């Protein structure tokens, strides 16, 4: 990265705005962005892990006298239509969403890595058939497939996780396959082959470790995707049951009060989805720059 900085630096002498180097101005906010993202992710993790066991507050505590209070000092996010504190509800909702997202992303990454690595390692007909199947799978819109699966197996945590995982392994499989294909032509793999290693040993010992950084990056980026997917399903009434309210459920139940003009029960759950997503994407961008410095880092969702 340092090389490109010095290469583009001389242009700074030319102070015409149109020739200003893109790289430098971008780099100036990079550390700030990375630190902010890290702080937000840490805050989210702390809130989700520590608040429920430590704070001993009942998120379901109903107080009809305090229903639909706008944001105030007592209730920073206001209260919902039966007087529950929205900040607490959002933290619990984020906990559920994050859990579903993490598990689904993990499952999807394992499936995707296994399928992609197998396709690339075997090659030939296996590769062709598997990749055709991946193409077929990916021509069904994700949410529609998810809706279909959840509709066929009643709403619940597991159908949602399964549907998110089943629709999201495709991109990982493609990434892993192309990475493995490019690694396979490296000399150290040839060396292993002539050393007499079996196909299995080469795949597990030499190829998979090489693709793990890429697969890990895809997995991290998949967490917000999975959360988004889960909240869309929950919003449509096809996701989690309402006693395990996720962020999508919160937005769904707030529709009534929104139409009465109260915006805060809708706004804050959405923000709880956006801010962690951006923070995770920011961290993933830093990571990508480390493993692949030649490509200019962009936030990618």
């Amino acid at each position, binding site marked *: 990265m340092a090389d490109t900085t010095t290469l583009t630096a001389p242009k700074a002498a030319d102070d015409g705005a149109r020739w200003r180097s893109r790289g430098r101005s971008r780099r100036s906010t990079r550390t700030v962005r990375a630190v902010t993202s890290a702080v937000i992710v840490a805050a989210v993790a702390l809130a989700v892990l520590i608040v429920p066991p430590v704070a001993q507050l009942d998120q379901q505590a109903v107080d009809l006298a305090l229903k639909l209070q706008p944001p105030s000092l007592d209730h920073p996010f206001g209260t919902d239509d039966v007087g529950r504190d929205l900040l607490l509800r959002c933290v619990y909702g984020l906990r559920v969403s994050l859990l579903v997202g993490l598990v689904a992303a993990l499952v999807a990454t394992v499936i995707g890595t296994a399928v992609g690595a197998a396709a690339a390692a075997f090659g030939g007909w296996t590769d062709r058939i598997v990749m055709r199947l991946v193409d077929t799978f990916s021509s069904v819109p994700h949410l529609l497939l998810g809706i279909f699966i959840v509709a066929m197996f009643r709403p619940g945590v597991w159908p949602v996780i399964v549907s998110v995982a089943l629709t999201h392994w495709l991109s990982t499989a493609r990434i892993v396959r192309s990475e493995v294909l490019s690694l396979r032509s490296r000399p150290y793999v040839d060396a292993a082959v002539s050393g007499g290693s079996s196909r299995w040993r080469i795949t597990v010992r030499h190829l998979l470790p090489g693709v793990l950084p890429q697969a890990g990056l895809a997995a991290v980026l998949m967490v917000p995707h999975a959360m988004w997917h889960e909240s869309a399903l929950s919003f449509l009434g096809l996701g989690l049951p309402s006693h395990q309210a996720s962020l999508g459920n919160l937005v769904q139940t707030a529709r009534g009060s929104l139409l009465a003009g109260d915006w805060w029960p*809708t706004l804050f759950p959405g923000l709880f989805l956006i801010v962690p*997503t951006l923070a995770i994407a920011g961290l993933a961008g830093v990571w990508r720059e480390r493993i692949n410095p030649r490509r200019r880092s962009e936030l990618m969702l």
Partner: protein
Amino acid sequence: MSRRLPWGAMARMTGRRLLFAAPVLLVVTFGVFAVAAASPFDPVKAYAGTAGLTASQETLDQLRANLGVDQALVPRWWEWLTSAVTGDLGESGVMRRPVAEVITERLGWSLLLATTAFLLAILLGTALGVAAARRPGGLLDRCVSTVAYTLEAAPVFWLGLLAIWFFALRLDVLPAGGLTDSGSDIVTFGQVTSHLVLPAAVLGVSQSPWFYLYVRQGVADALEEDPVRGARARGLSERTVLLGHAWRSGMLPMLTLIGSRVPELITGALLIETVFSWPGIAAATVEAATSVDFPLLAALTVLATAAVLLGNLLSDLLYGLADPRVGFDG
């Protein structure tokens, strides 16, 4: 732009893609039936409702045969497929009407919404992308990029709800949903237009960040390439350089995006139509799913898959037209 269009090559590519689409659709329909067969859900019980609790086993068996669910997976799938080819997609349980009728009635409204939104997304994304690429790192670039990243992360149903709150409740300038005002049943042009604005705008704006980021990147990269340097050296105006050289080559990556955004567009339409009670096909999908209406759900899944394949074809055709080096081999 007076060169003749390569109709022959385009037709060949379309034909090849249609041939390829047939097995994909076969696999998708089979997968849909396999998932339904694996599900614990019993269509007979759902059809009979509470009456099914007291009905005799004989009646239930009769009902099972009538609904065609007494057969094994493969014959059921084959029967559905053969009748689907003749246009008979079965009977929708939740609408109590033939599936084909439901689809033909609602497809137009969905197409209207989706096309308007897609065009809006492309136009908005391209315009802002070119403007931002002129000065990378400038004020406009930073502001719009920040908004774009936020929009990428924002769930579209949430945007829709906030838009309803702001425009329909706070400002009271646009209707909150539906196709016509609640009082009237007659669909007039003016009414549909005013009801279309909000859902199409939300869907379009939520799709535009991807176009914006692609165009911005493409144009910014093109601005550093030799043809642009040459054009600047010849003393062409900045406007010609930007629109005539950089824009045209920077648009190429965006054309591939058109095809790959179709699934996301359908996803967005599913949510937006539900939020705005738009009487389209995507809202019907959600209804069909909540009441486990298998014939309708199966038909709509296949329809969406066909739409995605069509979008891919369109995008490849456009790419081949725009970049003669690529050709129509795919």
